[in-house]
């Protein structure tokens, strides 16, 4: 009796979750705890904190995974509309920190509506395409483009280029899986490349300097280039096997900026080397593969589009963060999924993966 009750409870808890994904996430979590302990100079307070918000994220993931995708889908339009309204609110009454207006005070505290948009926009598009699935024509793509551009421009205006790119990217992925014509995709890409010289001419001096610093960090080795150089030194000096846990000199001599958050990968990479990097990349690739499999098996168009967009967004986070820390992409504030220290980012990732598990659960029955 006892055993079977425990089994039943375990089954009730495990049932909505995807075993594969959960196992892979657990792997990333273990690595992230090891890296955080070193990056925070062995701060138990940060470890405790991380445990708390990870537990919270798990609960949220579980709750969303239990809900049927149909129920969640009905929240798409209200969530999107609320998100846009809040973004307008930010534009009008937002709180300005360091020259950009991203936050809104809603009485109980401040929120960042652009975070909501990261999930609300793909939900909205998936819902929209599902609604018109049978009559789909080019007009719907135009409407979809408008749905992407409205929050995109609002976020761009804050200004927050990083988040705007991520939000519009998530929207574009939904469009892509909805069958946006290759001609338009390739045409758009070519137009973008062709417009770069024009954009260059329109840029301010300081913006050009930032781009040049990206191409050659040595141009500004004491300013913007400093962080990139230091994090490249950390990665490079890690070698194949790393310097060992808690033995990274770059980390512990304070050369790595933001080392518990955006640059935690530099800490990990210095101490665990190429081998550690490959292990982490393998885990991420596993997560992405599993997510794409769920996408392919999803029974509805809504499920496919949303799951696809979530998966690609997840990949973009991983790629942009690692590319930035390794010095091949510009420094934009994108955390490394489940590795970087920070509750908000973890919870919002958990929301996405929870919905994805919900979609995945549907096909198995």
């Amino acid at each position, binding site marked *: 009796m006892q055993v079977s009750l425990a089994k039943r409870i375990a089954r009730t808890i495990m049932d909505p979750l995807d075993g594969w994904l959960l196992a892979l996430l657990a792997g990333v979590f273990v690595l992230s705890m090891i890296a955080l302990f070193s990056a925070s100079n062995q701060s138990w307070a940060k470890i405790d904190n991380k445990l708390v918000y990870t537990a919270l994220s798990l609960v949220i993931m579980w709750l969303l995974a239990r809900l049927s995708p149909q129920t969640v889908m009905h929240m798409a339009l209200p969530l999107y509309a609320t998100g846009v309204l809040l973004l307008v609110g930010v534009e009008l009454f937002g709180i300005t920190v360091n020259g950009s207006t991203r936050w809104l005070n809603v009485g109980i505290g401040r929120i960042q509506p652009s975070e909501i948009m990261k999930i609300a926009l793909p939900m909205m598009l998936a819902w929209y395409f599902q609604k018109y699935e049978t009559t789909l*024509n080019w007009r719907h793509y135009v409407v979809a483009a408008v749905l992407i551009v409205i929050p995109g421009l609002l976020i761009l205006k804050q200004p927050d280029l990083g988040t705007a790119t991520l939000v519009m990217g998530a929207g574009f992925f939904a469009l892509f899986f909805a069958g946006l014509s290759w001609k338009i995709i390739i045409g758009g890409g070519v137009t973008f490349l062709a417009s770069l010289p024009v954009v260059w001419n329109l840029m301010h001096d300081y913006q050009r300097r930032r781009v040049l610093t990206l191409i050659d960090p040595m141009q*500004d080795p004491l300013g913007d280039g400093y962080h990139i150089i230091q994090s490249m030194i950390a990665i490079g*000096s890690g070698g194949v096997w790393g310097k060992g846990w808690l033995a990274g000199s770059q980390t512990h001599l304070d050369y790595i900026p933001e080392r518990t958050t955006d640059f935690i990968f530099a800490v990990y990479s210095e101490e665990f080397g190429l081998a550690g990097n490959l292990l982490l990349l393998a885990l991420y690739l596993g997560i992405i593969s599993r997510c794409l499999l769920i996408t392919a098996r999803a029974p509805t168009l809504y499920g496919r589009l949303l799951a696809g967009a979530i998966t690609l967004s997840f990949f973009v986070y991983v790629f942009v963060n690692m590319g930035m820390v390794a010095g091949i992409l510009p420094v934009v504030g994108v955390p490394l999924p489940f590795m970087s220290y920070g509750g908000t980012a973890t919870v919002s990732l958990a929301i996405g993966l929870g919905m994805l598990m919900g979609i995945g659960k549907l096909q198995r029955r």
Partner: protein
Amino acid sequence: MKQAARLKDPHTEERQLYWRLLVAYLFMVLMLLLLVARFVWLQVFQYEHFATLAQNNSISLVPVQPNRGLIVDRNGIELARNYASYTLELTPDKIDDLDATIKALGQVVPITPRDLKRFQKFLSESKDFEPVPLRLKMDDTEAARVAANLWRFPGVEVKARLYRDYPYKELTSHVLGYIGRIGPREKERLAAEEKTANYRGATHIGKLGLEAVYENELHGQNGFEEIETDSAGRAVRSLRRTAPVHGNTLQLALDIHLQDVADKLFGARRGALVAIDPQNGGVLALLSKPSFDPNLFIDGIDSQSWQSLNEDWQRPLINRAIRGMYPPGSTFKPFMGMAALEAGAIGPNEVRPAPGYFTLPGSSHQFRDSNPRGNGSANLARAIAVSSDTFFYKLAWDMGIDRIHPLLAQFGLGSKTGIDLDGEAVGVLPSKEWKARRFAGKRYRDEHRRWLPADVVSIGIGQGFNTYTPLQMANATAILANDGRAFHPHLVQKVTDARNGKTRLIEAAPYRQLPFKQQHYDYIKQGMQAVMQPGGTGWRLGQGLQYSMAGKTGTAQVVQIKQGAKYNAGALAEQHRDHSWFIAFAPVEQPKIAVAVIVENAGFGATAAAPITRALFDYYLTGKLPDDLRGQLETFPPSATGKQDASVAR
């Protein structure tokens, strides 16, 4: 519509989705492989390079400090300069036993308890890998002695550093301010302004005065040097060097000779003096007495010196010229007269009684005249010359505060002048709104806030709620002297770019023209000129003038004298005696200098402030010095750049 038709077919749609999923998957795998390639490049092929860099990291990139810009007076005499000397610096990170090392170093060069205390303070403010100075300003022999012993002390360095020096110390402190060590608060500010990179390796920053206001001009642009070092952190060779851009040179409108003369004329007395060129708003002299030696602050003031400066009852740290708020006393009358003429409250040459006291209708309170017998009757010009109080009580009463306030505000009274120094006080040009605001607090009742009819009376003679800074009074005088053309007073005249030697004028903002009648200016000036002539309150100081001079004496009450009692300086504690005021400009026809002088607790305007002004004008306009000042003045080096302003006659 072909596309739409295709989409409606579920099988095609599904095939298309799988195809796209495959494309996306291959794309992602490709990108992740790109990352792998990057990691292999960094961690395998470039491993040696980065491992070396990591090992020598603390010295691979050394910022090269720019030289701080100089500050020179209008004739090119250096008021703030740099000189090179040696520091002994310790990097806590690289030293096993800090105390033992310091003790051992003490055998090589003298290290005082003061040095130690300062070291501890800096240590607590810096990170472990940052070098912290233990000894400053070592001479050549000391530096050589340490250098010979350096092998014994890993983590200890001798560095050549530029020191800031203010050669004229007390004379310039309230103008130049000083630089000091960058503290936690400045670090935060630099981070907020995104200037951290340009201050990497910098130890000092402008804290006060022009050094703070013009920090961006003076600091310059960091250079950097890539240096290869051995494992002990000693430089082996320089690989690459980008030269810093040195700070720009500030040239002041201030004339250090004039400043010196003004200072010596004050002697040990307390007060302030501001001299302005009315033609362009350039500040020729700005003095606040007593003063302090700014050099004390550069590397952290010791607590004893700080205590004695901070607790001195004479408040040497306060810049009285821009922060001291004093009732203007009778120096207010020319401006009050101007307002009365403009308001039509009195006509030029209209004669009125100037009795010994003034009473309000239905009241027995006597507003007394400084001359108990009164001055008979007078027109406005004579009322200014003899400084009749009752004449101005009546004028103020007739006009009322609502008409007085806007007219006097035109002279910049009661608002910041906009001088290029921080911390300027606003002063008080009273109005009904001001009084309501001033007494809005819970401690006050409605009757405190309400404007009383009697309030306006003493305002007419510059007492009551009136308070202004000496700078505001000098500025108002310059505006009057220049027939209503008002400039923002400014200390810095030109900035010379360190890169190309090009000179940029700090524009005196385009002047504002006051909307007053020329004949009124002429009339008031006539009254102020009469002050310096027989019968005027300053007639003694108008004797033997080689140029025309207009002035106004003033005496500012510090304590209220009881009804019926007499002011008796001897019976009052020194701090309660009246302040001596004088405002003046010369030559009257084409004013070259306008001043406001206040000597604290020195009594009647004509006895202290006016003689200073006369001697200063004599020096500035004719080059003549009072006999007793000869030999007391500083010797200034002949300016390297030659006389830059030919308009200054000497």
